């Protein structure tokens, strides 16, 4: 993880409290796998209630 990532992660934790975990997960996913990564993380959460978002839509 680069310095900028560390700074962003730290600031997200400070700013978002309980929501920071998901925010950091989304940030890391975006860094690693782009938009697809973000949607994968979101679908992992949404799977709990049996829905998902499509990869091809906005």
């Amino acid at each position, binding site marked *: 993880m680069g310095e900028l990532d560390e700074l962003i992660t730290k600031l997200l934790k400070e700013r978002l409290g309980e929501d920071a975990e998901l925010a950091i997960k989304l940030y890391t996913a975006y860094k690693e796998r*782009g938009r697809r990564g973000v949607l994968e993380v979101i679908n992992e959460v949404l799977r709990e209630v049996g829905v998902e978002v499509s990869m091809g839509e906005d």
Partner: protein
Amino acid sequence: MRIRIKELVIRDFRGFSNERRITFGDGINVIHGPVGSGKTSIIQAIEYALYGTQLEVKERISKLVDLINEEADEMTIRLTLSDGSSVTRALRRSGDSARETVRAIIDSVVIKGEDADRRIIELLGIDDDDFERFVLVTHRTLEALVYGSIVRRSILIDKLFGLEILDNLNKSLPMTQIERLITELRQRLASIKELPEITSKYGSIERAREKMSELRAEIDRLRGEEEELSKAYNELLLKRNESLKGLRGVEEVYSNYIATRLRREGIEEELSKANVRDINETSIRLRLERLRDALIERLEEFALVKDAEELEKLVITNDNLADALERLYTAFENLVKLRDKLTEDKDYLGRVRQDLELQAESEKASLRELEGRLAQEEGRVREYRDLVSKYGEPERIRRELEELRAKLEKINAEEGFRSSLLNVLQYILTTHTDKCPVCGKPLSDEDYETISRRIKELSSKEGMESIDNIRDRINELEKVLMRVESLRAIVDDYEATVERAREVKSRLEALITRLETIDSSIRDLDKRIQTLMRFINEFRDEIDDVDKAISYLKKYRELEKLRAQEDELKKQLASLGLDTNTVVKLEDDIKYISDKLTQVRNKLSEDSAELSRLELILSRVGLDKEDPSTLRRRLDFLEEFYNKLGRIRAGIRDVQARVRDEMIKLVRDNVGPIFKTLYPYEDLEGAGIEVTVRDRGVVGVVSEYTLYAFRPGGRKVTVSRLSDGQRLTIALSFLLSVYRATNHNIDFLLMDEPIPYVDQNIRRAFASLLVRLIKEGLVGQVIITTQSEDLRNDVVNAARDAGINCRVVRLVKEGNERKIVQEP
């Protein structure tokens, strides 16, 4: 060790078929060739070698398969770095896509797959995003920094600061999709919720469906009717216009007449509905006087003397009915306020009573507990008292015991002496000795008689009985004393408890007395409030009725005026040649059609709404197999998740602002010294950057950056007022300040056609900047591509003049073939 590029070997990469090799040196490496000769491909090959599939993930290339030469099924790249590490990537065509294999040698260890990707990033100290930000420099970067609009420049600087990623992350969040899911769930739930209502309203789903068909037919019919009525209405309006045409001055009178008539009819209808036939001032005055007297009586009863006195002065006449009513209302409101105040007092006393009741309950509970304890100990207390009355107080028992013990001791001593003497005398008598064995005195017969008598005396049991009696008494008293002493503590506690019970009882009695007083006050207040309430309700009904009567009276008087006015206007119309009967008939028709049209439109609107509702609800019948509670849970979850993403979006925006501040701080410290190193002249002595946050309405809050240089003395000069060379120096200083603000192991810059289509001055300034970059040790290696032979020559000449190492790689395009020529 800081990393530079040593060698690139490509096979069947993009336009390059077969194997090609480029060796790079420290200093400047110029890759020169015409358009389409593959200069950008060389830069891309280096980037791909380092970061592989990330280029596709981040959409920097559309498909990996595009990197394979059109004539080949696979391609290979091997990049060797200055520390001896190397990375080899191969792509094999597989349908429309490509499969990648990667192999790296770092510190002489072979690593493959994802581990290789991770280790390369660790080795360089930056990932692909950072690489794109400040290692890869294109003409777009430089242009946007110093030639572009403020918006373009700001977007680029945000990208250089790494803020674009946060923007893109926010844009990637599928808010619209989740919103759609929420809306759909809401509709499904609404449908499920309303279905029972529909069934109960229409009897069954089939009947509801029939109703839909009926509604459609009814709506069609109503639309037809509406059209006909509209037509008729317009025709009547035309007819009215026709009848007025040609009659000069009639329009105003006509309008007045119609308005007066409508107003008169309206009032008549209102009065008729209210059943007002005849109304006059006197009857209202009499009612107001009765109200005034009743109110005065109540005000006096409730000690509102001032208000009562004020009202007594009120003289009601037929002309001041409204004023009088107002004054009665004012005084009456004071009585209402008093009722509110009394109610508040009663509530307060109620609360106090509640507190006291709680206290009394608590005291009662304490008393019960104390009485319980007393009852429990009563037996032992009685025993103690019986013992004391029989044996006296413990002190006395103790004294008697001491006396008895002393007495016993004395008697015991006497008894010992008697017993010894008896033994001696019995011995003398038994042995019949001549002499006394104790004193040696000769014993006579007389002595023996004395001895026999004495033995008889001494053998009496009297002394022993006395000892037994004393011992019995001592034993008894000791037992009693022990018992009395053990009971004493209980008795003390009992007496303290009695005292406490007495105190609690006294407090309880005081509380009960207070409660009784409060109860009495509450009853009294309640009585007063009830009296007042009854009066207020009756009085309000009456005064409101009088108020209404006064309002009707006004209307009644207005009606009389309107009738007179209408007659007058009718005469005027007749004198102007207009038949009022025709007018009235026409207006009646217009009004009738207008009312009918309104009715039809209302019905149309109702039916359309019901039809839409039925269509929505019935469209989902049979589709939902899921339990409504599952849907509800899903909806709650999605709503919460949507809100969470919203919070995250806002948080990311805030974080972006804070990262920007941090980056600005870092860059500001670097940009000045770097500028001074790169710019050897004295007309400018530094550079800086500023950010301004602006609210651009619908676009939102944006950050605008300003790059500037300092004149000697500190005056700021914005880039737009600088020469091309000065602008380029600022741009490069800024890029390098970002490059140096981050810790990494890279010691090279890749410049892909950084200044196309520029004049000689800019070219030379840029060439000398590159040389200075290397010479001042800001970067160890620059790889630059250009199609400009002039720039190539300028860079080569500047490097030669400064004694800097410079290599030229020439790319040649022959038909579809691309060749690499490494110049000596």
